[in-house]
């Protein structure tokens, strides 16, 4: 589904990502891990077009997406969340979700202001979807609250459900469980698994918590200083010499 080929990013002298190649297959929950500063978030920003690679190419569903602007990549079907949550704070939870779906007719100024029947119909459909998603994650009670007034964990959940509203094929999660208490972490993990099983979504996950990643992912790519040092199943990664050295700083 996603293929990264020799992706490289230099910031001046610093090589943040060095000839990185990997693949994410349809329906996978793939992990991307590495010590602090190993370039995980940079890889996300390169894939989603928030940064332009120095070299290398990215393919999504066999189409090259290298160099496309971030909104075009999102429209192609890649959604993402951010390490530090990025919700629209002075906008309600529902409106956060409603602003996500792609190609809404009402997002053109004229049909939107005129509220054509088609725009109203689309709004009703999206509203139903949004309410349903919020019910599933238990946020329907705060649907009309400003997002900035919610606790951090709930904001993270809003960000994830908002990403789902774009109806993506691939979702990049940047530390989905950081700053969240352990009970909720399990709920989030169950939810991610459910989305894969029931809805056929594919995930690429950056995560610091090793238990989370080992437990959730079926494949893991390990980065160190921007280079891939391992790529395999959680069991393979756990006994990989290079990975252990990188994490222990040997």
């Amino acid at each position, binding site marked *: 589904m996603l293929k990264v080929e020799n992706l490289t990013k230099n910031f001046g002298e610093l090589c943040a990502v060095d000839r990185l190649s990997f693949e994410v297959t349809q329906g996978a929950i793939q992990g991307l891990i590495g010590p602090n500063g190993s370039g995980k978030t940079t890889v996300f920003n390169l894939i989603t077009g928030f940064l332009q690679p120095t070299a290398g190419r990215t393919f999504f569903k066999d189409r090259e997406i290298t160099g496309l602007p971030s909104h075009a990549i999102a429209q192609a079907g890649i959604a993402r969340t951010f390490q530090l949550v990025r919700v629209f704070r002075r906008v309600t939870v529902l409106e956060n979700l409603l602003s996500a779906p792609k190609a809404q007719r009402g997002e053109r100024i004229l049909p939107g*202001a005129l509220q054509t029947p088609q725009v109203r119909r689309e709004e009703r459909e999206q509203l139903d979807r949004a309410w349903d998603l919020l019910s599933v994650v238990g946020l329907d009670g705060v649907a009309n609250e400003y997002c900035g007034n919610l606790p951090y964990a709930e904001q993270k959940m809003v960000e994830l459900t908002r990403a789902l509203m774009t109806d993506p094929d691939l979702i990049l999660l940047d530390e989905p469980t950081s700053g969240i208490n352990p009970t909720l972490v399990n709920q989030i993990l169950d939810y991610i698994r459910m989305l894969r099983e029931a809805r056929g979504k594919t995930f690429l996950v950056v995560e610091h918590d090793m238990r989370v990643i080992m437990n959730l992912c079926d494949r893991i790519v390990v980065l160190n200083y921007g280079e891939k040092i391992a790529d395999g199943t959680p069991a393979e990664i756990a006994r990989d010499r290079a990975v252990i050295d990188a994490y222990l700083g040997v």
Partner: protein
Amino acid sequence: MPDLGLLVHLAVVISIYGILAISLNLIIGTTGLFTIGHAAFFGIGAYTSAILAKLGVPWILAALAGIILAGLVAFLIGIPTLRLVGDYLAVVTLGLGEIMRAVFKNWIPVTRGPMGLPGIPHAAILGLRFDTAPKFLILSVICLAIVFFIAERIIRSPFGRVLKGVREDETAAQALGKNTYRFKMIIFVTGCGMAGLAGSLYAHYISYIDPGSFVMWLTFFIILIIMLGGLGNNVGALVATTVFVLLREGLRFVALPEGLNPAALQQLIFGLLLIVVTIFMPRGLIPERKITYDRERDHAQS
């Protein structure tokens, strides 16, 4: 004893400034784009409309030309500045304000420079002439109502929802597939076009314009109004416009001690008001309206 003529005049001024406030509120309040060149677009609308009308063009076409030219200049300003995230727009529009003032002042064959343009014809639509203040009030209030209605429809539309998203977090909006440049451009051009309409009304009401009518102070005056009234709330913007215009006029009649200049006192009071409001009511007198949905009721309707 209130003077009816003065009240009508103030009502006209309020309706024209109301258009400026609402149009700027779309750009700053709803979308979070900080522009400080609104007086320039007001001036472009005023001069374009006045010059064309003096050449015999009917008011409605002259006003339309003013709106379009203001929008076109906004478009050209937007091309380099709106692609970027940050305060580039503020810097460039600040410059534009000064440039336009210089143009009005020095392009003498067209604008007559500091002498100004006198004898601007009254506004008229299909033979209906708005040649007295009460008649003009009808025209300016209709224009204000149209602008208010359009602004409200924009704010409540899915388009307006994205504008708020751009204001809150442009990066997140991009990650949702929104071409934020396009949204920012459309609202900037629309808002500046509305300022052009306000300029046309002003020119044909006062019947005389000169470069001094379109100075930076006017822009700050309007920014102050929307900050006090409520960023993103058009009712708040109109309330604040009314309060400000009345306050400004009222200050003229206060007997001031020797040596105190009324203009300076006015600016001092407005400055203090702004400080007080930003501390105690940071979202203004009437904050942005929250758009809520009721699941049961929505279902009952559909």
